[in-house]
Each structure stands twice: as C-alpha cells, then as structure tokens.
C-alpha cells in the first residue's frame, strides 16, 4: 500500500511541476482542450499502470507516451482526421492588421490539426518542444530521417492549408526543411 501511495504522490508531483507544459502539449496534439485533457489522462493511465516497472524518468515516459498515443492516432476517428471547414480564399488585405495576425495563427493551428498524427507529433516536438531531430526521433521511437521527412511534409502541408484558409499566397512563406 505504501508503494502505491508513493507512486500516486510521484504522479501528483510530476503534474504539479510539469503539468501545465504537458497539458499544453496534449492540447496541441489533440486539437482542443477537452481532447487534450483526455489524451493526457490516457497517458497518465499508462504511467500509473506501468508504476514500478518504469525505470528512470517518469516525465520522459509520460511524454513519450503522450506523443506515441498521438502519433498512433489515438481517437483517430474523433479527433485526428477531423476535417477543416473549407473556408475558401478570402481577399487579402493590403495592410495586415492585428485581426489578420490572429486569423493567421488560427489558420496555422487548424492546419496543424489537419496533419497526419505522425506529422503533427513531429511538428509539435520540433517547433513547440524545440527538440532536435535526433531528440524527437528518440521520443517517437523512429529514425531522425523519419522525423526530418515528417516535419518537412507537415510544414509544407501547413503552408498549403494556411494559404487556402487565409488567402495568403503559399510562397509568402518559404519552408524550412533543414532545421537543425
């Protein structure tokens, strides 16, 4: 019983210290606060189930689980393949204002959630967590080359979708494909 209590305490401590960052990552991976909460809970359940079998860093295990659940298409039918409404190209304004900036961010987020689960996980790892390709590959359990390709395709797709959603020309952005 004491071991179980210790494990519970460890999870509580982990969430107290790192919960916000983990929750934000989950929201990005899942697409909404509600789904992110479910995703993080699912990862926590894995952590709790593993319990004493986890050797090393519980946070590392939790983060890997979070990303792998996401990359595996957790709740794929409800979340991952949710289609964006096709808004069509609006007329670009000649002088972007703050509203346009918000629109762009909104479009980027929606484009992020149009990516395949693996691409999205990769983009979040690279651009949210700011991990290197090698570090991201370790989290996802794949090769750095796979990370590189997924990030590249993901960003390209985001650019295309963002262009569609905002009417902003795709070549307004040049894609960074060789980010270190």
């Amino acid at each position: 019983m004491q071991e179980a209590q210790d494990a519970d305490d460890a999870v509580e401590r982990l969430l107290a210290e790192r919960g916000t960052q983990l929750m934000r990552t989950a929201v990005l991976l899942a697409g909404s606060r509600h789904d992110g909460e479910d995703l993080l809970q699912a990862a926590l359940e894995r952590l709790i189930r593993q319990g004493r079998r986890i050797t090393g860093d519980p946070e590392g295990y939790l983060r890997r689980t979070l990303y792998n659940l996401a990359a595996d298409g957790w709740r794929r039918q409800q979340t991952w393949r949710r289609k964006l409404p096709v808004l069509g190209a609006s007329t670009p304004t000649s002088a972007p204002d703050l509203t346009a900036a918000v629109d762009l961010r909104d479009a980027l987020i929606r484009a992020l959630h149009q990516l395949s689960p693996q691409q999205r996980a990769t983009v979040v790892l690279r651009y949210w967590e700011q991990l290197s390709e090698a570090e991201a590959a370790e989290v996802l359990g794949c090769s750095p080359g796979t990370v590189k390709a997924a990030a590249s395709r993901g960003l390209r797709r985001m650019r295309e979708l963002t262009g569609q959603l905002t009417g902003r020309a795709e070549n307004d952005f040049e894609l960074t494909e060789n980010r270190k």
Partner: protein
Amino acid sequence: MNQEFDEEVKESMKWFTEDVEVPTGLAAQARDQVRRQRRARMTWIASGTAVAAAAAVVIGAVGSGGPGAAASHHVAAKSGTHQVGRGLTVETTSVVIKRVDRALSKAATGNPVAFTRESSTGARLAVLIPHSGPVEFSPDLIAETWTRGALTKTDYMTPAGHVLFSQQSDVSSAQTVDTSVSYTHRAWWRGTYSVPASTKPQVACTLGETELTRAQWTREIKKLLSCGAATFAGYEQVDGVKAVKLKLSSTIKNACAASNSPGKCTPVAVGWSGVVWANASSYLPVRLMAHGDKFSFRIDFGWLTPNAANLAKLRPSIPAGFRHV
C-alpha cells in the same frame, strides 16, 4: 521567409495554449480509471491472427493493493479494454448480453429475480487474485447470473456443473462492493470502489447497450425492429413460450490487436450475428444466441419468483475454511 514561417508556427502554438492549465483532479481521474480497468472486465478476446473471440473476465487487483484494494468483477464496467494473452480485445460496452440480466431487474420492488444461463465457446475466465497474480480458468465455462435491483451474483462453472469462481456485486450505495470466491484456490476477497459513471443512453441502431430495465428492454426490442437492426423472422415456441424470433447483426467496434505493444491500437471491427427470441407478449428476451468468427454464446433468460430461496442466490456464499486474501 523560412524563419518567418517557423516563428509563426511557434507563436501560433503559444497563442493557442497560453491559457491552458492542467485541470485539477486529472491524476485522480486517471488513477480511478486504471483501478476500474484492473477490476471487472468483460472482454471479447480473439486469439491468433484471426478474429477468434472469447469471453473473458479479468478480475481483481494487482500490484501492491491489499485486500481493501482488491476488487472483482463488476458487471457494470462500462468502458476500456483489457488484453489477456495474445489476440484481440474489444470494448466492454460492446459485449452483447452479459449484463442484461442485471438490467432487467432494475425496476421497483416486486420484480422477479432475473436469471441467465450463458454457455459459450471460445470463452476464457481470467482472474487477478490479490497477491497472486492472474489465473486463467478452463475455457468454455458456463455462467449463471442472478440479478435483482442492486445485487448481482454470477457463478462460473464447468459444463459438468462444478463451480470454479463466483462473484457478487452490490451497487446499492455510492460504492460498489464486490465479493469474489475462487473455489479452485479456496480463497475469497472483497473490494470496494467507486461506481463507474453511467453512460449515455443507447440511441444507435444496434444492440450495444443492454443494461436496461424491463420496460427499457421492451422498448429496445421495438427500437431494433423499427430501425432495421433486427428483422422479424416469425414466431417459435421456446421452452413452451410463444416467442418472436428476431435476427440481429451488428459490429463490435474498436477492437485492438493485442499483438501490438501496450498503448497501441489498430481499430478492428468484429462482426457478429445472432437471434433473439423475445416473449411475444412482453417482448422480454427468452433466449439469445450469437456468433462471430470462432466464438459463440447462448443465453437463456429466466424470471424467478423473489422468494427466500431465489433471493439467497443474490448473496455471496463463502464456504467454511476458505482463506481471506
């Protein structure tokens, strides 16, 4: 420009999540869910690469939980899956009829004791015995269940009638109290835990939700007929009762290949078909037979007078000399 796009992606993520905080109670919810999953679990399991299903119950507590944390089969388990051995697991809510006996007697005082006898092929009973780990009983067990109100008891026995395992569940309070008896191990244990949250009413055109009151069950049969999930196939006499014969077919969704590593799930749909015979007057089920790929089961329903003898069937019976674990 490359840098600009990178920065926009980063800023968008930051903007999207800037007011997100981890909700309070998330860890507790995860713990509760894990505990529920470690307890009663009715799953369909398919062995090998084919969809060969078998009913299994995973019961008990693992790890460091003492007797107080030990738990047992709870027929109201609503969600989640548990993998037993190799094969394929399906959400518990999709198991067709196991809980109907309990649901059928939820009505007010005076209701009969609902009785079901289920025989199946490809079925396994897996029990997690406190401090001992998982034990799998012989396949193709027969399960007899008595249900009335908040009380349910199921005896799992061999075809010859030798009881191997028994479990009683009491959900009359805010807590579920399960009492499990392993005749094989001459041991018993009791667990108390929170009652799982109820699920939304079943509205889909399928026989997926079976935890229904008598009146609901009657409506369910009618619904299945009206929505096309069941087709009328004439009248037959079943054990002397005039019954409506209804053909059903459905799909158990969200099966996971257990050969995947933990945490991974490739959704697989498992088709099954069956026949329900319902009382031609009350629409209460008399018998259900179903089969899928390499599994089948039959449930006979009975409605027993709530006399002292039948009510006693709802109570746990712990033989003298059995040890409390």
